[in-house]
């Protein structure tokens, strides 16, 4: 321990606390005006960086923080992807995530070359900015009571979960080529991509199923240890395949997909923790990446970055999406929406630190160029996404599920589920006596919450509009009950 401790760590935690606090407090206003919250975090990092006594330029640290953040985000994304809807959109999403990534990278590279970059630099920039980030789309929609058509939402979500590994592989390989051009061979390149994806997929499935068995069989003494266990699985899912030349990012997403689609003890608690970790990952990674950027260098890359950003948003992405989705019978409007909402997020900025770390000449210039491209491609689709939903007509008729006021969670696997409804005047049961409801055998109302009071329910209790009604049902009865009660709350 040096003489400066614990003052130094105290200072660091204070700064981190202030930055995270501001990020959290301002995320709602920023979403209200349609600016993705992540851009706020990035801008905050940039501002904070300008105030530091000496510029922060630790690209290695930033890369590590960014990787951890991305692992947490991808794991949370996988946990929350419902396999039933995802399955049908796997083929188009997989095409977008592989061929689409390569196509986007290629087109951006052509534009970069025209702007005066060398071919290999241009390809590197293309690869770096080629993967999308769906989290921003969904967080922009969350506040607006608009729901996306399942097909469109699922495609965007799966695409963004699956395309990061591809972008990572392309970037790492191209960086290698930049450093030692004579080692490049096209077949070797292709083989490398395929092996990484194969190992990543296998490791993800393996760890996912291993985790599934583990969670089903073991009992740990405290509820708080379950999320600790799933976190360990997330770390393993990235670490192990990475050690064996596989794609850790693909493995993390796949493992979470497997885990999230089965019964788990304390499921709600586990999901909540990972949701929080993903937010923290998001905030930290954007703050750190903002810290790295130097305003002077940003200004230098400004014009080129702006043009490349617009080429990506208005030309490369639409063309590639259109080609990729041709075989899958999407309507022109659905294709249009997927093309428009190619939001870029943390991954490109994270990847842009790779060339700098590896000591590629001009790496810092590329980093700042990418910074611009990402900001433009987060801002344009992010700020317009609500409008785009209406314009392309991809809204799913219907209200978003309201949050419940009460959560009742099973800690063991039981044959019943507790679901809740917000009684709307339109629902057939509104105004009826509880005793008059033709509920399926074994289903029953447990209680209701009215104006902040929790009431027991007996036969003569009337269900009033605005009540939150909690029922126990068997899973097979859900549809019959939903038909009567109408607006189901989130669970």
């Amino acid at each position, binding site marked *: 321990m040096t003489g400066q401790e614990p003052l130094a760590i105290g200072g660091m935690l204070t700064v981190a606390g202030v930055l995270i606090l501001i990020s959290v407090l301002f995320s709602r206003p920023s979403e209200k005006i349609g600016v993705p919250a992540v851009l706020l975090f990035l801008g905050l990092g940039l501002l904070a960086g300008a105030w530091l006594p000496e510029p922060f330029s630790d690209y290695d640290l930033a890369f590590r923080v960014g990787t951890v953040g991305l692992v947490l985000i991808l794991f949370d994304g996988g946990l929350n992807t419902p396999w039933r809807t995802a399955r049908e959109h796997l083929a188009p999403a997989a095409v977008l995530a592989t061929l689409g990534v390569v196509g986007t990278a290629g087109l951006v590279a052509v534009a970069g070359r025209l702007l005066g970059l060398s071919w290999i630099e241009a390809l590197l920039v293309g690869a770096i900015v080629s993967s999308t980030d769906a989290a921003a789309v969904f967080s922009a929609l969350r506040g607006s009571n608009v729901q996306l058509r399942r097909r469109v939402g699922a495609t965007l979500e799966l695409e963004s979960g699956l395309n990061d590994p591809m972008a990572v592989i392309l970037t790492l390989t191209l960086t290698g080529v930049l450093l030692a051009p004579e080692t490049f061979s096209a077949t070797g390149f292709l083989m490398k991509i395929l092996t990484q994806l194969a190992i990543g997929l296998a490791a993800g499935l393996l760890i996912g199923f291993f985790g599934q068995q583990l969670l089903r069989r073991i009992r740990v003494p405290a509820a708080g240890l379950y999320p600790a266990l799933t976190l360990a699985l997330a770390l393993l899912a990235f670490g192990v395949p990475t050690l064996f030349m596989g794609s850790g990012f693909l493995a993390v997403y796949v493992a979470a997909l497997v885990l999230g689609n089965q019964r788990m003890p304390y499921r709600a608690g586990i999901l909540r923790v990972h949701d929080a970790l993903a937010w923290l990952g998001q905030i930290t990674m954007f703050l750190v990446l903002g810290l790295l950027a130097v305003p002077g260098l940003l200004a230098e890359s400004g014009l080129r970055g702006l043009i490349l950003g617009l080429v990506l948003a208005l030309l490369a992405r639409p063309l590639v999406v259109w080609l990729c989705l041709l075989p899958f019978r999407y309507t022109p409007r659905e294709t249009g929406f997927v093309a428009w909402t190619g939001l870029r997020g943390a991954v490109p900025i994270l990847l842009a630190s790779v060339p700098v770390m590896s000591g590629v000449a001009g790496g810092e210039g590329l980093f700042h160029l990418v910074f611009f491209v990402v900001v433009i491609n987060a801002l344009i689709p992010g700020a317009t996404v609500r409008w785009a939903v209406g314009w392309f007509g991809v809204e799913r*008729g219907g*209200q978003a599920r309201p949050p419940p006021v009460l959560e009742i969670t099973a800690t063991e696997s039981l044959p019943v589920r507790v679901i809740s409804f917000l009684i709307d005047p*339109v629902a057939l049961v509104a105004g009826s006596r509880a005793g008059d409801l033709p509920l399926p055998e074994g289903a029953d109302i447990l209680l209701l919450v009215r104006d902040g009071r929790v009431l027991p329910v007996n036969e003569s209790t009337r269900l009033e509009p605005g009540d939150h009604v909690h029922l126990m049902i068997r899973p097979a009865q859900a*549809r*019959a009950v939903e038909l*009567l009660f109408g607006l189901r709350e989130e669970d």
Partner: protein
Amino acid sequence: MRLADLLTPDRIALDRTVSSKKSLLEAAAGLLGAAPDAAAGRDIFHGLCQRERLGSTGLGHGVAIPHCRIEQPGASGALIRLTRPIDFDSPDAEPVDLFFALVVPSTCSEGHLKLLAGIAQLFSDPDQRERLRGLDGADDVIRVLNDFEP
């Protein structure tokens, strides 16, 4: 009230063609609005749309029960079968070809709730679904409903 009493042959449309959820609801409102003492078709359409907004009335397996309350003295129903199933945001994401639309008075009673539950039960039975899909005439539909005891 029994399920068969909800329908008359002129409110049974077999082998219709519609292009979207909206035009299906319009067709259903048209049939229901033509019943004696019925509310205006426009109001019924509006009511059905409002109910769909709370969540799709699709049950899965290609069937759906659009319904609402409306200012009219009694309950009535309409049955529509499509030649080409349409997307109805069903939970299983399967397109829907068989619809039983239902309107009940705004003073919805226990009996009216039971009608909805009864239709749901009818549609949950794979054999009944297949029978309804294979029938040729409106009279046969009413016979199926007469035979069905929830």
